């Protein structure tokens, strides 16, 4: 912004502080929030990785082995480990916030938030076990 006007009597001159690009470093809660938002990048990566895996499986045994060799590359492993952390972080923060967004009334009383969060986690565990069983059983 250009230069500030000087004060003239009876004309209040307000001070408007600037917001720095690094505003989020100041408070722990803001840092956690930005991390949460950034985790969506890693979620996207996981989706892409998963689609590549499925495509490789579809193209046959050789393509699949090539893909697995590529995935075993230390840098890819590192990226995936970091991504795993962020995806779990993303899921945990999402489930913890869910009760605030989902207000369910049953028989006139509000269902407690912990129950909603718990049922989300529960569903996550069950679905994960189901998927794991399908894959592991199918691979035999």
């Amino acid at each position, binding site marked *: 912004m250009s230069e500030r006007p000087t004060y003239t009597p009876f004309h209040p001159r*307000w001070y408007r502080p600037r917001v720095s690009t690094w505003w989020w470093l100041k408070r722990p809660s803001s840092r956690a929030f930005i991390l949460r938002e950034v985790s969506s990048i890693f979620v996207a990566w996981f989706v892409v990785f998963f689609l590549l895996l499925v495509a490789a499986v579809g193209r046959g045994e050789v393509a699949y082995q090539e893909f697995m060799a590529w995935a075993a590359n230390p840098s890819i492993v590192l990226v995936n480990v970091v991504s795993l952390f962020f995806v779990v972080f993303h899921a945990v923060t999402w489930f913890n916030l869910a009760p605030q967004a989902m207000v369910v009334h049953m028989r006139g009383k509000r269902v407690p938030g912990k129950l909603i969060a718990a049922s989300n986690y529960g569903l996550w565990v069950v679905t994960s076990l189901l998927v794991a069983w399908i894959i592991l059983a199918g691979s035999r």
Partner: protein
Amino acid sequence: MNDRITMRVARYRPEEEDEPTFEEYEVPCHKEWVVLDGLNYIKDQLDGTLSYRWSCRMGICGSCGMTVNGEPKLTCETFLTDYAPGPVLLEPMQNFPVIRDLIIEMTDFMQKLTAIKPWIVRDEERPLAEGEYRQTPDELSRYQQYSMCINCMLCYAACPVYALDPKFIGPAAIALAQRYNLDSRDEGSGERLDLLSLHEGIWDCTFVGECTEVCPKDVDPAGAIQRYKLDAALTSLKSFLLPWGAG
């Protein structure tokens, strides 16, 4: 324990300076004293030129919101001893223009409050002779939490979206809109939706959740906004799929 504590207070005298400065004051630090007591001591005994807002000193009028050590707080509810041995940094609430010292400009907030139509909207008013609108305790509990807002604006001070985009209508305004939307006596949720479904309405919110963290009255504006997003999405879906039912 120390019985004195230093308060580093932001000062801004528009008639004399271009930018805020800081001044340090040493105040007694009694067990029952809150930050506001420290400010009153400064004004009464040390420096009468310090300006700040306060009134009820019991956390219900909403006047005394300020930034204490970087966090938005009501100074009447924040004990000085929590910051011992100090110093305590006292600045005006973030995200608002500063008029003077610790006093911020709040007409933007007042306009937004008015814009969301915070009154009972009905097609037909019931005459007084017919008595009250019936409302069961359950119906009351659906909106009661959102009616507790004291308009202290700490949620606006904490909201990074409002910091970056002052056109955002903000947590307290949306929570108040929900208070009326969920009131069984009100019929105005359609009218409010028209304003709130704009970009600066609910969709600007990215669910940071800081507003709920700092709210001194547990209004949970973040929850109100997310619920509203769900309602708004469902409403527009319904009117898309079933246009003849819209009204």
